[in-house]
């Protein structure tokens, strides 16, 4: 509780530190406008036109339904990866044999291109939610798994010994010795897993479904509707930036204050 209050207390200062980021985004939009003036509206619509399309889209119920669908798929996929990746990673980390055995499997999972997974998933599950969710899980699970595994493997033996010398009870050992260390590995893994899930969900939808933001993007492409395509991209990037910078980054800063 105290912890969350501290996050809220430091939040305005954190936001205030964001001016640099905003300046850089504005510079990026300026360059985008230069691109529009050079190449014309069909290739690259102006930021203004894109934002107008976006504004209109956000006022139509239909788009929100598509966003809902995509959000649902991404959260189920990410949620499953989070749960299984963390738990299995922790277990694998505690046993030397399990972590040795899991390494090549993780390499296979990470090394296999997501597009190949989509093809397999389409054959196995057909065109629907399952294909998308499966692809998301396959892509973000290994990231989280490796994070949890590394966190457990790198626990400091010296600190364990210290805890033993003071006869820490088991819950203190977990809360004060193991958890903060593991969390400092697993939390960044969750963040990258989430980013991965959000990217993969769009790609899988584009190829394998007829609804969701990815499918909308496919339709925009077939109609050469560049403003709509860019507006959709803006939604995707905007939502990712919101989650990452407004929700996760302040938590991460508080949690990792102790880091050098």
């Amino acid at each position, binding site marked *: 509780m105290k912890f969350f209050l501290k996050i809220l207390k430091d939040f305005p200062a954190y936001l205030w530190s964001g001016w640099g980021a905003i300046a850089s985004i504005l510079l990026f939009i300026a360059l985008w406008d230069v691109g529009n003036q050079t190449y014309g509206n069909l290739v690259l619509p102006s930021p203004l036109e894109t934002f107008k399309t976006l504004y209109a889209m956000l006022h139509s119920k239909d788009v929100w339904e598509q966003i809902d669908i995509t959000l649902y798929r991404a959260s189920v996929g990410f949620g499953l990866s989070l749960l299984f990746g963390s738990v299995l990673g922790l277990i694998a980390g505690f046993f030397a044999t399990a972590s040795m055995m899991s390494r090549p499997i993780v390499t296979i999972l990470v090394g296999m291109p997501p597009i190949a997974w989509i093809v397999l998933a389409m054959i196995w599950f057909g065109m629907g939610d399952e294909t998308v969710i499966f692809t998301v899980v396959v892509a973000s699970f290994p990231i989280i798994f490796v994070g949890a595994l590394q966190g457990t493997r790198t626990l400091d033996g*010296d*600190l364990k*010994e*210290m805890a*033993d*010398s*003071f*006869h*820490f*009870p088991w819950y*203190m050992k977990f809360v*004060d*010795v193991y958890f*903060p*260390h593991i969390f*400092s590995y697993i939390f960044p893994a969750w963040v990258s897993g989430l980013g991965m899930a959000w990217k993969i969900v769009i790609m899988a939808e584009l190829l394998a479904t007829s609804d969701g933001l990815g499918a909308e993007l496919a339709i925009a492409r077939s109609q050469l509707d560049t403003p709509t395509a860019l507006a959709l991209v803006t939604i995707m990037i905007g939502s990712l930036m919101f989650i990452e910078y407004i929700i996760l980054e302040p938590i991460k800063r508080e949690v990792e*204050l*102790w*880091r*050098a």
Partner: protein
Amino acid sequence: MESLEVKHLTHHFGFTEILHDINFTLKKGEVLSIVGPSGGGKTTLLHLCAGLLDVEEGFVNNSFKSTAFAFQEGRLLPWKNVIDNIAVGLLARGDKKSVAMQKSKDIALKFGLEEDDFEKFPKDLSGGMKQRVNFARALVTKPSLLFLDEPFSALDIGLKRELYAHLIESCKEDNMSILFITHDLMEGIRLSDEILLLKADPGHIVKTFKYDTPKDKRDDVFVYEESAKILQDKEIIETFELNSLELK
């Protein structure tokens, strides 16, 4: 009477014998140091006595009511600030949080830490401050037996003396016992009632030195004189391999 008894203690790592037939008794209120060259099994012996390693052969009987450990390299929890680090020992034995915090603050001030430092994380502390925290964490629990694993080796002379004084005070006031390992003979002479000389390969005790002068009466002259004396000892010369050096 509380005591630490070690009898016929032998220890192996794999096929290598690290310790061979160690015998000693540490009584309540005594300071016992184990002196020997690096890599001679001192740390292993201390860990066996503190229960951090399992005894394989022989036996260790520790009847002290409470123990604490001060490590060579601090071993502070990097995610806890100074006060929370000092309080871990108190919390582990079940003290109430408010009590533990108060005790920790009191001892931190006594050990020369300032209130501005209380909220700092270990990464922001100097080596000396970390070691103050390390000692405070061990002594705040008022252990009846304190294990010291060369905690002074990286400290400047001023801080060393300050910490010696704290230890001598705790021994006097709370009748605390100390099992202390070091490779510094002068340190041993300053603090101990008894020094055991541990010779390496495998670690075994070759000689015992006793000092009866009260610890607060041991000034520099005493320590230097005794060190000079002990350095002439045949066993010391052999154990630390002093004769192979042509330093005259």
